[in-house]
């Protein structure tokens, strides 16, 4: 009895924290339609801020609390809404989720930067540390009572705000009918801003309370949100009382399990896997069940107009791209140091993982937050299956994971949008907790994945693995192109564009989704199975999946090029941090910062870059000129005039900054052309004249320098010519107009166009 009561109290106070977090999630989701994956991270930042004020700067607790919860948190929330979220109306769920992932990455990066984990810091004390009261013979700490009290207070305050204030009524009105709120003279944008501010305060409160229990660690604070998802989903993402109830149930489950579970309750292992991870997985299991008991999402007409766009890839350009990618890797890999080789290798591995999202997310529009989980399963299968890495083992590993992917997808398929994305997140966490964190799976913390054995070729060096992975990416990229051009590809796109039309034309939506998931899991498995080295479970953690998703979307999840771009950026970035300590901090917030801008460019960077090059299509004289220029740069390097790093930098600048501007140069008026040519040439000569191997002594600084140079030279040249006629392939500007229209011509045109002249 005593024990039951103790654990009930512990359970309720845990549940209280879940409730506070979950209510914040519900508030923003209902008023702005954005499910904030970064909600936990907000709480984490708030906890750190509070610690900074309270324990590092010794600000009295009430003032520190007030500043954190009622000044900084609302400010942060309102700012997030205004700067980041407001631009997202009219984009797909995929983009909206990715932006919150970006925010998540940004905040973790920021916390790591400002509060590095290696520095010793003052302890985060509970409220009234050491004090406790006795309730019915049980000692309960003040902190627990305050936590519980806070949840009650939040419930009461939310109730009062939502039902007794004008702003609260307006918030509920926006949920009911956004348009009608505007017709009433209400301002939904302000309402959303208020909701985000309120939500940030709730996250902050939960973060501070939890930090008191568990100390300041970024990860548990951030992942707190997963447990809160479960509570929020139980509340159907809109019902606050149910959400609170769900949170209490979760907290109690967790606490009772801790108290009463017995060795004999569960078999200690099944199929050689220990089941010790179950407790940690309880909230996730509850989340999974809560998701699966949701009613089947109904087929609804009502098309979403996408701002993103993708084109059908041509075979000729795809094959050319694949071959030249491998050729370039073979060519430059000889010049790279070992660490740079590993950097690029990691980049290509990530690119394959990102590629696995192209058919699933890019084509079929289904969001997955678990791409790395399948890579991890692929690595395990490759290591555990007999054959020590021969081709048959590889194929079998990929097929097994693809089948797993398809099966896992099955129950989740009744869901769509945010619910589907969350169920993949739940799956990722479950696999992490139950499979990856296993002594049996990863003896001594890691396993050795054998290198793929290919007949007649021995691969043992990092360079060999790099070429193998790049080749694999190219081949898989071609596979994805083949899918896009096939019957399956058309079906996937049809599924994304209009599920209602697809179903009424006879498409079995479930089967198509399963195919998409299996294909995606198979491609992801390749990335793991090709690891060819010792891998650790942390590499395939759920939290590691999020940046991959983010960068795939940033690169442009609808295209193979986007996957390559995203993967290389991510791979480069993570190694960047280890190679260049001085840039480490910048690199931490870089992906997040890029991702936050997605609202402005939802098609992704690769698509935009491809657009820039489209003007070159069919202009053979310019293409030859570009090729010749590249040859000159290579020849100068071969003749040892340019160092290897100068070769890399100059090459990138030539292709990315100079080439896309050539058509503009040709089309401009002579005076402008002269300026632009001088500008471009000067930029190029300066770039080539610097010996980058010695000028900047670390890889990361060189990469940053490349980005800056491309931006300065490329955008600068464009700016020079901007005021002149802008050229598109079929623009009337280049048809050869040499005089102004006559009045008669204008009149005729207006008649044709039915323009009414007053």
């Amino acid at each position, binding site marked *: 009895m005593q024990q039951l009561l103790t654990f009930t109290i512990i359970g309720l106070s845990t549940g209280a924290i879940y409730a506070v977090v979950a209510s914040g999630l519900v508030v923003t989701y209902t008023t702005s339609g954005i499910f904030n994956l970064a909600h936990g991270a907000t709480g984490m930042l708030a906890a750190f801020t509070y610690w900074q004020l309270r324990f590092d700067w010794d600000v009295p607790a009430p003032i520190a609390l007030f500043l954190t919860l009622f000044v900084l948190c609302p400010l942060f929330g309102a700012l997030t809404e205004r700067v980041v979220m407001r631009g997202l109306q009219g984009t797909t769920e995929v983009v909206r989720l990715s932006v919150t992932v970006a925010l998540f990455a940004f905040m973790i990066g920021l916390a790591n930067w400002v509060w590095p984990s290696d520095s010793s810091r003052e302890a985060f004390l509970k409220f009234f540390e050491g004090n406790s009261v006795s309730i019915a013979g049980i000692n309960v700490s003040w902190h627990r009572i305050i936590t519980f009290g806070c949840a009650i207070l939040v419930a009461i305050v939310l109730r009062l705000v939502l039902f007794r204030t004008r702003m609260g009524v307006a918030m509920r009105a926006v949920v009911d009918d956004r348009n009608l709120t505007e017709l009433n003279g209400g301002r939904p944008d302000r309402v959303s801003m208020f909701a985000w501010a309120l939500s940030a305060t709730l996250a902050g409160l939960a973060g501070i309370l939890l930090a008191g229990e568990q100390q300041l660690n970024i990860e548990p604070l951030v992942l707190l949100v997963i447990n809160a998802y479960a509570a929020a989903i139980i509340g159907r993402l809109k019902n606050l009382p149910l959400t609170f109830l769900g949170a209490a149930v979760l907290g109690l489950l967790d606490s009772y399990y801790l108290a009463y579970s017995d060795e004999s309750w569960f078999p200690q292992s099944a199929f050689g896997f220990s089941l010790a991870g179950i407790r940690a997985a309880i909230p996730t299991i509850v989340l999974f069940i809560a998701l699966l008991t949701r009613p089947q999402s109904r087929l609804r007409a009502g098309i979403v107009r996408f701002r993103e766009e993708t084109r059908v890839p041509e075979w000729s350009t795809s094959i050319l791209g694949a071959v030249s990618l491998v050729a370039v890797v073979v060519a430059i890999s000889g010049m790279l140091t070992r660490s740079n080789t590993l950097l690029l290798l990691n980049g290509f591995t990530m690119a394959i993982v990102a590629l696995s999202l192209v058919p699933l997310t890019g084509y079929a529009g289904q969001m997955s937050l678990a791409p790395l989980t399948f890579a991890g399963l692929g690595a395990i299968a490759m290591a555990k299956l007999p054959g020590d890495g021969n081709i048959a083992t590889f194929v079998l590993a990929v097929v097994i994971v693809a089948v797993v992917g398809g099966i896992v997808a099955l129950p989740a398929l009744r869901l769509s949008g945010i619910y589907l994305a969350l169920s993949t997140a739940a799956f990722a966490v479950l696999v992490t907790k139950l499979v990856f964190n296993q002594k049996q799976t990863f003896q001594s913390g890691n396993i050795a994945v054998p290198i793929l054995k290919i007949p007649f070729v021995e691969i043992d060096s990092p360079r060999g693995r790099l070429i193998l992975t790049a080749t694999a990416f190219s081949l898989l990229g071609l596979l994805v192109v083949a899918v896009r051009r096939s019957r399956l590809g058309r079906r996937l796109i*049809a599924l994304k564009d209009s599920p*209602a039309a697809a179903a009424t034309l006879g498409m079995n939506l479930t089967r198509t989704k399963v195919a998409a998931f299996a294909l995606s899991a198979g491609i992801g498995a390749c990335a793991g199975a090709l690891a060819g080295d010792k891998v650790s479970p942390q590499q395939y953690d759920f939290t590691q999946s999020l940046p991959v998703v983010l960068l795939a979307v940033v690169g442009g999840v609808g295209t193979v090029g986007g996957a390559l771009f995203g993967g290389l950026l991510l791979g480069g970035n993570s190694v960047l941090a280890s190679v260049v300590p001085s840039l480490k901090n910048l690199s931490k917030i870089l992906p997040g910062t890029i991702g936050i801008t997605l609202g402005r460019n939802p098609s992704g960077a690769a698509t935009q870059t491809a657009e820039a090059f489209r003007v070159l299509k069919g202009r053979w004289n310019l293409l030859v000129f570009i090729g010749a220029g590249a040859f000159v740069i290579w020849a100068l390097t071969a003749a040892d005039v340019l160092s290897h790093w100068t070769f890399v930098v100059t090459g990138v600048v030539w292709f990315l900054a100079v080439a896309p501007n050539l058509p503009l140069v040709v089309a401009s008026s002579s005076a402008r052309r002269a300026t632009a040519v001088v500008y471009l040439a000067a930029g190029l000569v300066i770039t080539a004249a610097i010996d980058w191997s010695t000028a900047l002594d670390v890889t990361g600084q060189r990469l940053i320098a490349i980005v800056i140079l491309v931006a300065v030279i490329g955008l600068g040249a464009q700016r020079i010519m901007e005021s002149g006629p802008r050229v598109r392939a079929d623009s009337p500007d280049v048809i050869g107009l040499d005089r102004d229209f006559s009045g008669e011509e204008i009149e005729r045109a207006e008649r044709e166009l039915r323009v009414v002249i007053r």
Partner: protein
Amino acid sequence: MSLLYVDRVIVRFGGVTAVDGVNLLARAGEVTGLIGPNGAGKTTLFNVISGMQEPTGGSVSLDSVDITDLPAHKRAQRGMARTFQRLELFGSLSVRDNIKVAAELAALTNVNSIVDEMIERVGIADIADRPAGDLPTGSARLVEIARALATRPKLLLLDEPASGLDEAESDRLGELLRTLAATGLGVLLVEHDMGLVMKVCDVIYVLDLGQIIAHGTPNEIQHDPKVLEAYLGAS
């Protein structure tokens, strides 16, 4: 012989009865019209027939087989195809690929020749390679019809195919529907353009407040005082 038989279908949303015991019959080779004021329940009935909305009561049969419990895609496989009032084209695919998806889904052989045939029949050859998302309404409606026809249906359900069309386009649509019916296809047409409805329909059903208040030939409907009252309100 009836192709589609809707038997006492009821749909309730909460306390509101949107469709209240509707009986309706559509024959092969005929164009059957379904008209009625806004909010009468036409789109809901259409969704029940195509499998996008579960009825509260009643049944739907196609070719004398009860299909009430079949999901949308199984109904399509049995020979039913529909278009949508608010265009549901696959916007990122080309017009040709839109039609191709449909032909492939119907598991037809020589898909390409069927696609060409549909493009020809509906008269959209000039836009066949454009992305479907950029089309003006008139063309987009035709593409939706071509796409539906590419599954070789027995019954074609058209939800306001003429809305957004100009008069010439609307006339061409009417001719197309007559040609299709002449080949033995059954057409169920929900439409507000009365000129079109009166011209092409063999039989017309009038739905008001969830109930069929009249049915008959175009001439009978035009002179039915109940119909005029449903449209214009009590005088």
